[in-house]
């Protein structure tokens, strides 16, 4: 299934460093290596989950791919259908180097849904104006058609047409997130970057929004990069999952494989730390010591080695490479092939120990 699909987005060696300036001369004293060389691809119609703890660079990665922040280095190859010339199905563009005019055209194909449904909608604009704004900016729909188009979009995300003239404060969190989704859909994009779209919502509402995202994906053939810290949510919605730690992807694999056969110790620990909503589910937690180190001054060698239970001498000395272990299962670990890491049991209960 995945083999047949075409790659929509390919990211190669993407880096984003934020300079840290010090002293009166504001000299660059160091860099926050928010994204430190990541490689990934997303196939058309697929959902790639990007997980990691706060500060691992997942949001910056998403924003750099959209070029909402300028990449420091690397390529972001995007196959745009709207920019295709005659006889082409799509045109490959390097987003990282696109001049501003081309970039504006590309934005019609790449949209984003933000985490916070409260701060990402302008409180002084009506819902209709918020959703119509991208249409105006990109001169997509004529003035007369705009109203009916916005109504269609509201309908698609499960809101009512008469919500158009209301203001964001009149809506609940879940409804606001639907407005944000309608705005992202307005330009009929190919790729939507969902940056923690459900983490501010209550569980019952979270499920509604996740289901909506899934049905919209089928309806409009959307491709998602789904950024979240909640592994259960990511596991539910993604076909493949990438795990980030301190600006690097430590593991990337198909969802089932990642949870059944993790190859990176960080993935193993992360998965074991998630509380499972079942009192009989006995998971032996692998507790990581300490906190995530500072991205200004990451540890030598493998960034994870100070917290890793399997670390050997080589881990503090050399940075491991990002290696394909077959079946598009990538991991960044010196010991990936020798370790036998514990999977999450996918079904059934452990013996009743309590």
């Amino acid at each position, binding site marked *: 299934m995945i083999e047949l699909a075409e790659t929509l987005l390919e990211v190669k060696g993407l880096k984003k460093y934020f300079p840290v300036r010090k002293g009166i001369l504001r000299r660059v004293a160091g860099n926050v290596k928010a994204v430190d060389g990541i490689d990934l691809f997303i196939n058309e119609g697929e959902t790639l989950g990007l997980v990691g703890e706060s500060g691992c660079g997942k949001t910056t990665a998403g924003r750099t791919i959209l070029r909402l922040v300028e990449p420091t280095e690397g390529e972001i190859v995007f196959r745009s259908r709207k920019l295709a010339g005659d006889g082409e199905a799509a045109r490959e563009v390097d987003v990282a180097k696109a001049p501003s005019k081309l970039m504006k055209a590309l934005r019609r194909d790449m949209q984003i849904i933000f985490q916070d449904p409260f701060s990402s909608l302008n409180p002084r604009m009506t819902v209709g104006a918020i959703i119509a704004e991208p249409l105006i900016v990109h001169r997509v729909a004529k003035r007369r058609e705009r109203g009916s188009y916005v109504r269609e979009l509201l309908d698609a995300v499960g809101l009512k047409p008469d919500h158009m003239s209301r203001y964001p404060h009149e809506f609940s969190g879940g409804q606001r997130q639907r407005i944000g989704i309608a705005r992202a859909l307005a330009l009929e994009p190919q790729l939507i970057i969902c940056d923690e779209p459900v983490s501010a919502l209550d569980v019952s509402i979270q499920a509604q929004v996740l289901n909506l995202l899934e049905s919209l994906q089928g309806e409009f053939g959307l491709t998602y990069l789904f950024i979240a810290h909640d592994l259960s949510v990511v596991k539910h919605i993604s076909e493949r999952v990438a795990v980030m730690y301190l600006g690097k992807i430590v593991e990337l694999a198909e969802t089932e494989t990642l949870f059944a056969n993790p190859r990176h110790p960080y993935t193993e620990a992360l998965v074991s730390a998630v509380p499972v909503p079942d009192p*009989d589910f006995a998971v032996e937690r692998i507790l990581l010591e300490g906190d995530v180190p500072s991205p200004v001054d990451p540890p030598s060698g493998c960034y994870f080695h100070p917290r890793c239970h399997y670390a050997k001498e080589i881990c503090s000395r050399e940075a491991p490479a990002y290696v394909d272990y077959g079946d598009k299962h990538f991991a960044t670990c010196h010991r990936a092939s020798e370790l036998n890491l514990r999977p999450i049991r996918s079904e059934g209960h452990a013996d009743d120990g309590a």
Partner: protein
Amino acid sequence: MMNGATPILDVRDLHVYFHTEGHVVRAVDGISYRIEREKTLGVVGESGCGKTVTGLAIMGLVQSPPGRIESGSILYHRDGRPTDLARLRPKGREIRSIRGNEIAMIFQEPMTSLNPVYTIGHQIMEAVILHQKLRKKKARAEAIRMLRAVGIPLPEQRVDEYPHQLSGGMRQRAMIAMALSCNPSLLIADEPTTALDVTIQAQVLELMNDLRGRFNTAIQFITHDLGVIANMADDVVVMYLGKIVEAASVKEIFHAPKHPYTQGLMNSIPSLAMRKERLEPIKGVVPDPFEVPTGCGFEPRCPHAMGICKSKVPGLAAVSPGHTAACWLYEMR
């Protein structure tokens, strides 16, 4: 411990209302529950269900005005005698001798609930000096001992640091150290790990489990995370719109949820342990607190709603031994 039958806390028909311009919000609307000694009671619910206000009411920290404990009692059993916390003056001597001493609270946001201009040590020592009447030097030693107990590395050094110098997980540990410094018999933990990353959350939950055993503390654990509840609680109450809709042991709640709201919550969460093709969300949204339905609060969202649900509020009734639910589905039988 001494008396297995008396719970540490016995809340009876508690009502906490907030009076705002012309409106009354019934944040807590007639709830009753007990916490047994050395047990952990999980309180689950979505935002606005009244779970935090319940905790604040026990501590005498409901801001008044606009909030007020309208009726009901919060019986706290100390030395075999019950004290009704709902009747105590919120700034009086008696509650002040209990608050932070016998009953302590951990808040969700470790950054906003620690004072940024005092060192961690100062803040722990304050409680110890006040309640245990220790001298400053001894209190400092005690603060260091507590910081070590909650797993903060280099406690002798950390004791003189300010909250901003600590990471989120460390701050939450410091909060726990502060809460446990007077060896409370009841700890109210209000979403203590919600602001933390999962690996740090795992550390803090492990720590709380460990300390619970060592300090014999009963815990009221407030959270919206069913995964955390499954790992921490002995008994669970589920709240919706200021009312308890279901109460049972943790196993019963997860394996045989009875109230449609509890069932809805279980069906709407993705789980790492199971594969669900599609989530089944609860339809609609939590009603506006100013316009609460007249009958069962869950009726507008309930898949099993019947005629009676619209007009009459169901009471908590036993569905099996030790398991109660407030739903007409079970009262009819």
